């Protein structure tokens, strides 16, 4: 790709924990008197204490970006993502290291930078635009576009304090979306607004990243967006670069670490295990067959073992899968066995590309002779399905309780030539 436009070299940032300074002027003066004038030993920089009072938010980070790169930065809370963006945006200075770059930089670290509640939408567009580094000519040129994108034309002269929160967010994002710097820095700000607006935002993001020449740094918890929008990925962990590479690989490693397999639950003692005198739960496990985490593309295997203390009737198990809100997704009746003093095992394999990415829980009901429930183990197994989407343009929450893979296709079934179009037009004209 193009030339290097941003180079981050051995960047480190140290923060002091706890109170900044020692609190008040009096304390600082007495501190200074004791340790600088009287030359007493410094209590703060002694022994193990000194390590605990400081934290390296970033520790020797180096990377570079070429023109046109879109870098996705992922990491758990406190991993240093925001600190990195703040340093590159020049808001805070690094403790060590350098950032060097070419061209103009704009950063969107929050939605509504420079907005003031009392001012009208119009005033705020200018205020925010200037704060984000736009010029007067630029804002004037794009003003109509910004207003149209936000969809709040009617309220443009109303103070934003009377806006609904949705309107506020839309206007604020619209201003930010019309920035045209060489390097654009975006913190987790797109996770606001309603689904429809998020769709619009992501579309805009994609426009920006596709435009030639624009370099983007993008922090998000939306792994799908990172995988699809970015050309490079960085995983930050406790201030260190844990992994760099293709975003989809980095995202996978990250999910593998954090969406850890759910450990099987096991009850050693039959007398304290959930259940009653006839049936008790011994062990439950849930997991993906091949990967360490469950995603929409993996089969999901649920296994349960029971102690059975009854004899003389048939038992079977009713398996109910519930979605996040508790609605039933499906209900299965297992095959039945003759009850005897034994350990029974139930295996359910949910095929890949059936469930959506959300949390599900399983309730089991053990039934005697196909009619009489013996015991209900409600929500005894729960799991979360991770998202995995590539080659799509939509990164918001996928609607639906399930996301089955169903063939559907849209195609051109018949080409119309120009003449027939005119016929339709004249037909419309006649009828109206």
């Amino acid at each position, binding site marked *: 790709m193009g030339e290097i436009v941003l180079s981050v070299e051995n960047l480190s940032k140290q923060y002091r924990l706890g109170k900044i300074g020692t609190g*008040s002027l009096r304390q600082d003066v007495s501190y200074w008197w004791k340790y600088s004038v009287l030359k007493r030993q410094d209590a703060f920089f002694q022994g193990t204490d000194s390590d605990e009072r400081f934290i390296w938010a970033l520790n020797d980070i180096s990377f570079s970006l070429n023109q046109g790169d879109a870098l996705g930065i992922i990491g758990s809370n406190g991993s240093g993502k925001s600190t990195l963006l703040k340093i590159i945006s020049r808001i805070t200075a690094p403790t060590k290291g350098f950032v060097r770059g070419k061209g103009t930089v704009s950063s969107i670290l*929050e939605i509504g930078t420079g907005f003031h509640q009392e001012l009208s939408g119009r005033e705020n567009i200018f*205020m925010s635009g200037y704060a984000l580094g736009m010029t007067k000519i630029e804002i004037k040129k794009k003003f109509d576009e910004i207003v149209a994108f936000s969809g709040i034309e009617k309220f443009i002269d109303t103070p934003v304090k009377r806006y609904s929160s949705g309107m506020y967010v839309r206007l604020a994002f619209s201003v930010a979306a019309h920035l045209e710097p060489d390097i654009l820095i975006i913190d987790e700000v797109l996770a606001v607004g309603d689904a429809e607006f998020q769709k619009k935002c992501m579309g805009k993001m994609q426009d920006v990243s596709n435009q030639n020449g624009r370099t983007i740094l993008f922090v998000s918890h939306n792994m799908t967006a990172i995988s699809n929008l970015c050309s490079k990925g960085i995983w930050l962990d406790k201030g260190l670069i844990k992994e760099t590479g293709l975003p989809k690989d980095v995202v996978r490693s990250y999910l593998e670490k954090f969406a850890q397999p759910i450990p099987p639950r096991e009850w050693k003692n039959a007398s304290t295990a959930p259940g009653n005198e006839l049936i008790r739960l011994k062990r439950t496990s849930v997991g993906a067959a091949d990967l360490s985490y469950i995603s929409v593309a993996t089969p999901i295997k649920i296994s349960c073992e029971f102690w059975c203390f009854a004899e003389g009737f048939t038992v079977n198990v009713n398996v109910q899968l519930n979605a996040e809100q508790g609605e039933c997704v499906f209900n299965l009746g297992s095959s039945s066995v003759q009850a005897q003093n034994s350990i029974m095992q139930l295996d359910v394999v949910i095929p890949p590309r059936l469930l959506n990415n959300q949390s599900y829980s399983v309730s089991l009901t053990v039934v005697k002779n196909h009619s009489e429930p013996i015991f209900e183990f409600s929500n005894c197994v729960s799991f979360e399905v991770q998202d995995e989407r590539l080659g799509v343009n939509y990164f918001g929450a996928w609607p639906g309780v399930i996301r089955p893979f169903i063939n559907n296709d849209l195609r051109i079934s018949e080409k119309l030539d120009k003449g027939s179009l005119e016929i339709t037009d004249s037909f419309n004209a006649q009828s109206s």
Partner: protein
Amino acid sequence: MQEGTQKWDWEIGPKPAHSFAALKSVFAYRHLHAALVRKEFLLNYQQTILGPLWIFFQPLLTLIIYVLVFGKMIGIPIGKSTPPVLFYFSGIILWNFFSDSFWGISNTFRDHIHLYSKVYFPRIIIPLSVMSTNFLRLVVQLVMLVIVIFYFIIFKNFHPNSGLKLIALPFVFIGVAMLTMGGGLIAAILTARYRDILNLLGIVIRLLMFVTPVLYPLASVNDSLKWVVLINPLTPLFELFRYSLLGEGTVHADALVYSFSLGLLVLISSFFLFNARSTKLIDIS
């Protein structure tokens, strides 16, 4: 990567950018400065009945109180020819210019941390915009004062003998602005770190008013206490202000040199200090 052949447009390192570079980038952000000033005016008169008229009413109400309390009740001698209304009015508007901008600049970090912590712009823009806002207010009030002066000239037989003395007026503003900006920036740096100073500062400003010739002329101060008032670098500027507008005041060249050189010194040193400290202060604000 070809080391050395790379030409960078900018660099961010542990040390703050050079002060002159910071000053240069102020020009690029002039629109933000203008927008901040505009915002300040819009906000002040939003949802008020009298709206922008408050810019006149606020000093007028103060004037009435001062004329009644200090002029009529206490009866501070204010000079031979100057009508009390003009004397107090001129003192009030120049004092308001100083105290409002000084207070505003001192609160830079507290009031604007939400903006400072989310976006980069030359940090000095905020104090500058506070200064400009108050300067514009001063200009408007000055126009009002001039109208009142003309009223007194025409109807009350008042002879200020201003004429050429008016040339001194811009220098008064420059002098006060330098002291305000310099002192304000230092106060801003201190208050960002020690919030307790903010509580103190309000009282200091109020006390300062009593050692500045706002309510009395320098000439009427007891000789044994004069040095207290003269040590205040604002004193010569307030006297010069009245001298050039109303034709009466104690003006000495050496006192003015003292004010201006102190103003320049404070302004320059505070600017360097502010540039060096502001990024760190944003971390702790």
